[in-house]
C-alpha cells in the first residue's frame, strides 16, 4: 500500500483515500442492508405462508368436520343402530328388503352434503346398506372393506380418515374417494367388553375436495399439497399427482406440527412450509420458489448498486475537481520551480489567483509574491553583474594604469640611477685624490647625498618591480650564519655611532647551508634591522633566527629583529606595511625615508611564501618578525664550497644600480675583444680589472694579487681555466682564503656548469655576456 501511495500522484492517492473512506463503508452498508432486507422478507414470507397454511388447515378440518358431523348424526339414528346390533344374524328376505328400504330412506335424507359420493353401512353379518352414486352395490371390495374395518377398529378416534382410497363399491363412478369410517360397537355381557358390530363408511368426492382448495388465494408460483397419513397425495395443484405417494424421505423432514425449511425440490430451491392436522394427521404443504422470494430483494440490491455507482461517480468527479483545484496549481508551481532552477522561467509569468480563501489560494498568492521577488532579484543580479563588469573593467584599467605607473617608475628610476653610479663612483675616485679638507668634505656630502638618493631610487625601483611582478626569486645555496653576521655588520657602524649593542642568535637546529634567495632575504633583514637602529636611541638590537617547524626538507625559520626603541601604537602597527606609510607624519620629518622599506619587505616575504609582522607597544620597543620557508641545501649544488660558512661573503648592501665600490677583479681571458668588452662592463660598475691572457698568468696573479673575484675563461692557451682553478684552489689549501672564481665560457652545453663547479669554481656565466647577469653575479660573489 505504501508503495502504491509512493508511486501514485496526489490525485490517485486522494481517489484511493476517498474510495477507502467512502465507497468501502458504502459497500459494507449496502451488502448488510441487502442481506437484512432479504432475511426480513424471507421471514415475512414464512410467517405469511405459515398463517396461510394454518387457514388452509382450518378450512380442511371444517370440510372434514362436516363429514364427521354426518357420521355422528347417522350413528345416533336408532334404526341404524338396531340393524347393526342385530346384524350378526341374517334376516329373511322380506325383513331384509324392508330393512334395506328403511335404511336407504334414512340415509337418503343425509345425501345433501356437498361432495358426498356414497354412504355405506356394513354389518358383521354381511348386510350392506348403501346410498350414493350407484345402485349396483352387489360388487364390493371386501378386502378393502375389511382393511378399513380393521384400521377403524384399532383407531381410538371416533371417525377414522383412511385418506384417499379405492372406492369400496366397485361400480361407483368415483373410483378414488376420500373415505371416513366409523365402527359400531355393542357391549357383550358375556365377555364384558365392547365388540364391533358394523361399519359406517362415508366416501367423499376427490374432485370436490380438489375444487375446494384449487381456488385458494395462493400466489401463482406457489403450489400446495395435502398429504394423508399414508403419504398419499390428497390434494395437489397438479391434479394428475393426486393419489400418488410422496417421497418418504421428504416426509421425514416434516417432524414438527408446523414449520418451514428450504429444500431442493426437483432441482429447484423451494421454501417449504407445512402444517399438520391433529384431526387425521394429514399435512398441508406449500412450496414457494426461493428465487421468487429473492426477487423481491433484487430491487434493494439494484437500488444499492445504483446508489453505489452514483457515489463512485460523484467521488471520481469530486477527486478530479479537487485535482484541478489543488493538484494542478501544485504541478504548475513544481514546473515553475524546475524552470527557475534551469533558468528558463519567464519573468512575467504569474499564476492566476483564485477567488477562494483556502490554502491553495494562499500558496498561489505567495508563490506569485515569490516570483515578484525573484524577478526583482534577477534585475538586481543583472544590475549587480553589470556593475561588477564595470567594476572589473575599472579594476583592469586601474591595474593597467598601475602597471604603467610601475613601469614608468621603474624606467624613470633606472634612468635616474644610471647617471648616479658614475656620480658616486667618480666622487669616490676623487676622494682618493689629494684634496683640500674643504673639498673632501664637500665631496663627502656629494657622495653621501648620492648614496641616499640612490637608496631611495633603489627602493622605488624594487617596489615597482615587485608591483609589476618582475621580481624572480633565486634558489641557491647560502650560509645563513654568514648572512646574519653580514646584516649585523652592515648595521654595526651606525649602531656603534648611537651606542647601541647588537646581539645575534641563531638556533643551532637550523642547518648551516640553506637554499633560497639570500639577496632578497638579506634585503628584508637589513631593512628591519636598519629601521631598528633608526628608531632606537639606547639599548640593544637583537637579531635572531629560530626554527619554527621542519617538514621534510623544508625549514620554516622565524627571523626576529627586536629593539628597545620608540615602539609603535596599535594603529600605526596596522598600517605600517602599507606602501608610502610610516608610523606617522612626524616620522618622515624626523627620521626620513620613503616609507617603502617595510612594504617591500612584506612583499618579498610574501613572494617567498612567508609572513611578516610586528609586535609592539608604544614606548616599549618593537619586535619585527618574518617567517620564511627555506629548503635545506641540495648536496650536489655548489658542492665545492657549499659547506663553508663563507659561501656568502657579505660586503655591503649591493642592490642593483648601486656602485659596487672598489672590487678588484682578475679577468683571465685570451680573446682581446672579449677582454675589452668585459673590462668596459666591469669598469662601468666600478670594478678594478686586472687582465691576464692565460691560465698560468691567472694562477700567478691570484697568488700575488689582492683580488676580490676571478672571472675565468675556461679555454685559454698554455693553461685552461679548469687547470688554473685547480691550481688556485690547491694554493688556497690550508689557508682561510677562498677567492670566488666565476667561469666565463662560450660553452653552453649541459654539464658545463657542473664541470666548472667540480674543479672548484663557484659560479658560472655563459657567453654572450649579459651585463645584468654579470653585475648580479659579481654582486653575489664579490668580497
Amino acid at each position, binding site marked *: 500500500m505504501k508503495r502504491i501511495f509512493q508511486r501514485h500522484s496526489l490525485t490517485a492517492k486522494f481517489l484511493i483515500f476517498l474510495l477507502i473512506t467512502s465507497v468501502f463503508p458504502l459497500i459494507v452498508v449496502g451488502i448488510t442492508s441487502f442481506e437484512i432486507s432479504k432475511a426480513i422478507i424471507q421471514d415475512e414470507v414464512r410467517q405469511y405462508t405459515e398463517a396461510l397454511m394454518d387457514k388452509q388447515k382450518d378450512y380442511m378440518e371444517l370440510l372434514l368436520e362436516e363429514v364427521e358431523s354426518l357420521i355422528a348424526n347417522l350413528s345416533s339414528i336408532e334404526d341404524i343402530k338396531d340393524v347393526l346390533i342385530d346384524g350378526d344374524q341374517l334376516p329373511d328376505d322380506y325383513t331384509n328388503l324392508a330393512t334395506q328400504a328403511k335404511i336407504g330412506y334414512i340415509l337418503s335424507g343425509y345425501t345433501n352434503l356437498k361432495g358426498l359420493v356414497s354412504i355405506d353401512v356394513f354389518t358383521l353379518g354381511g348386510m350392506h346398506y348403501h346410498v350414493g352414486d350407484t345402485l349396483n352395490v352387489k360388487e364390493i371390495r371386501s378386502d378393502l372393506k375389511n382393511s378399513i374395518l380393521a384400521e377403524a377398529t384399532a383407531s381410538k378416534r371416533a371417525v377414522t380418515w383412511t385418506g384417499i382410497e379405492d372406492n369400496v363399491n366397485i361400480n361407483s363412478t368415483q373410483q378414488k374417494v376420500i373415505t371416513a369410517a366409523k365402527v359400531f360397537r355393542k357391549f357383550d355381557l358375556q365377555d364384558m367388553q365392547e365388540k364391533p358390530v358394523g361399519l359406517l363408511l362415508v366416501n367423499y368426492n376427490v374432485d370436490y375436495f380438489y375444487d375446494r382448495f384449487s381456488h385458494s388465494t395462493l400466489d401463482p408460483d406457489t403450489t400446495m399439497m395435502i398429504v394423508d397419513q399414508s403419504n398419499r397425495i390428497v390434494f395437489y395443484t397438479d391434479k394428475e399427482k393426486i393419489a400418488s405417494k410422496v417421497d418418504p424421505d421428504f416426509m421425514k423432514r416434516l417432524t414438527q406440527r408446523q414449520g418451514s425449511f428450504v429444500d431442493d425440490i426437483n432441482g429447484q430451491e423451494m421454501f417449504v412450509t407445512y402444517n399438520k392436522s391433529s384431526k387425521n394427521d394429514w399435512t398441508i404443504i406449500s412450496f414457494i420458489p426461493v428465487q421468487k422470494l429473492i426477487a423481491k430483494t433484487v430491487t434493494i440490491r439494484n437500488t444499492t448498486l445504483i446508489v453505489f455507482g452514483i457515489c463512485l461517480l460523484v467521488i471520481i468527479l469530486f477527486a478530479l475537481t479537487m485535482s484541478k483545484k489543488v493538484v494542478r496549481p501544485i504541478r504548475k508551481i513544481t514546473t515553475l520551480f524546475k524552470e527557475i532552477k534551469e533558468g528558463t522561467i519567464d519573468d512575467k509569468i504569474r499564476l492566476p489567483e483564485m477567488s477562494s480563501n483556502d490554502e491553495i489560494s494562499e500558496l498561489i498568492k505567495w508563490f506569485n509574491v515569490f516570483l515578484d521577488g525573484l524577478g526583482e532579484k534577477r534585475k538586481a543580479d543583472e544590475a549587480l553583474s553589470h556593475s561588477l563588469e564595470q567594476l572589473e573593467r575599472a579594476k583592469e584599467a586601474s591595474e593597467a594604469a598601475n602597471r604603467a605607473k610601475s613601469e614608468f617608475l621603474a624606467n624613470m628610476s633606472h634612468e635616474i640611477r644610471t647617471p648616479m653610479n658614475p656620480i658616486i663612483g667618480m666622487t669616490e675616485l676623487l676622494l682618493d685624490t689629494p684634496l683640500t679638507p674643504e673639498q673632501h668634505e664637500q665631496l663627502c656630502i656629494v657622495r653621501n647625498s648620492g648614496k641616499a638618493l640612490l637608496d631611495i631610487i633603489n627602493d622605488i625601483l624594487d617596489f615597482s618591480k615587485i608591483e609589476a611582478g618582475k621580481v624572480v626569486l633565486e634558489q641557491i645555496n647560502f650560509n645563513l650564519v654568514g648572512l646574519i653576521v653580514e646584516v649585523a655588520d652592515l648595521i654595526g657602524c651606525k649602531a656603534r655611532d648611537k651606542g647601541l649593542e647588537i646581539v645575534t642568535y641563531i638556533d643551532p637546529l637550523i642547518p648551516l647551508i640553506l637554499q633560497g634567495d639570500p639577496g632578497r632575504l638579506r634585503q628584508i633583514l637589513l631593512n628591519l634591522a636598519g629601521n631598528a637602529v633608526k628608531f632606537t636611541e639606547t639599548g640593544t638590537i637583537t637579531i635572531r633566527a629560530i626554527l619554527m617547524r621542519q617538514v621534510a626538507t623544508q625549514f620554516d625559520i622565524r627571523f626576529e629583529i627586536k629593539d628597545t626603541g620608540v615602539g609603535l601604537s596599535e594603529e600605526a602597527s596596522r598600517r605600517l606595511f602599507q606602501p608610502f606609510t610610516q608610523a606617522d607624519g612626524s616620522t618622515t620629518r624626523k627620521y626620513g625615508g620613503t616609507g617603502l622599506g617595510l612594504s617591500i619587505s612584506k612583499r618579498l616575504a610574501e613572494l617567498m611564501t612567508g609572513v611578516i609582522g610586528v609586535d609592539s607597544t608604544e614606548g616599549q620597543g618593537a619586535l619585527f618578525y618574518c617567517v620564511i620557508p627555506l629548503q635545506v641545501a641540495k648536496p650536489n649544488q655548489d658542492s665545492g664550497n657549499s659547506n663553508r660558512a663563507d659561501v656568502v661573503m657579505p660586503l655591503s648592501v649591493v642592490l642593483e644600480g648601486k656602485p659596487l665600490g672598489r672590487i678588484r677583479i682578475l679577468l683571465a681571458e*685570451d*680573446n*682581446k*675583444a*672579449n677582454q*675589452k*668588452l668585459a673590462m*668596459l*662592463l666591469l669598469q*662601468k660598475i666600478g670594478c678594478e680589472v686586472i687582465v691576464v691572457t692565460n691560465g698560468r698568468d691567472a694562477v700567478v696573479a691570484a697568488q700575488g694579487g689582492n683580488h676580490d673575484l676571478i672571472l675565468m*675563461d675556461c*679555454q685559454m*692557451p698554455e693553461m685552461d681555466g679548469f687547470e688554473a682553478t685547480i691550481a688556485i684552489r690547491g694554493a688556497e689549501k690550508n689557508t682561510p682564503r677562498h677567492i670566488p672564481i666565476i667561469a666565463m*665560457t*662560450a*660553452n653552453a652545453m649541459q654539464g658545463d656548469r657542473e664541470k666548472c663547479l667540480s674543479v672548484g669554481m663557484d659560479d658560472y656565466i655563459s*657567453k*654572450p*655576456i649579459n*651585463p645584468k647577469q654579470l653585475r648580479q653575479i659579481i654582486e653575489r660573489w664579490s668580497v
Partner: protein
Amino acid sequence: MTEYDIEAVAEELMFTTSELQEIFEIYFDEAVHLLPDCYAVLERQDYMEFSKIMHGFKGASANLRMKKLAQLAEELEKRGKAGGGAEMALELPLLEKEIDVVRDCIEAFYGKF
C-alpha cells in the same frame, strides 16, 4: 647584413656606440689573423687546435651579438672536436665571407677602420 643593428647591440651591452667601436676594432684585428691560423692548423691536421680557435672566435662573436658568425664558428668547433677533416678548409671561405659582410655593415656605420 641589415640584421646587425649596432645601436641595439650597444643598448643591450649598455655601451655607447663609440665604446663599442673600440671593441669592434680589436675584434676585426684578431679576425685578420684568424683565417691564416685556421688554414695552418688544418694543414697540419691539428683539428683540436682548430676547434679551440673556433671556440674563441665563437665567444667573441657571440659577445658582440654576431649570431650567424657565432653559429658558424660553433659548428666548425664541434666538427673539429669530433675529429673534423681537411675538407673543413673548404668551408672557411664561407666564414670569411660572413666576416666581410659584418665588417661592411659596421664600417658603413662608423666609416672605414
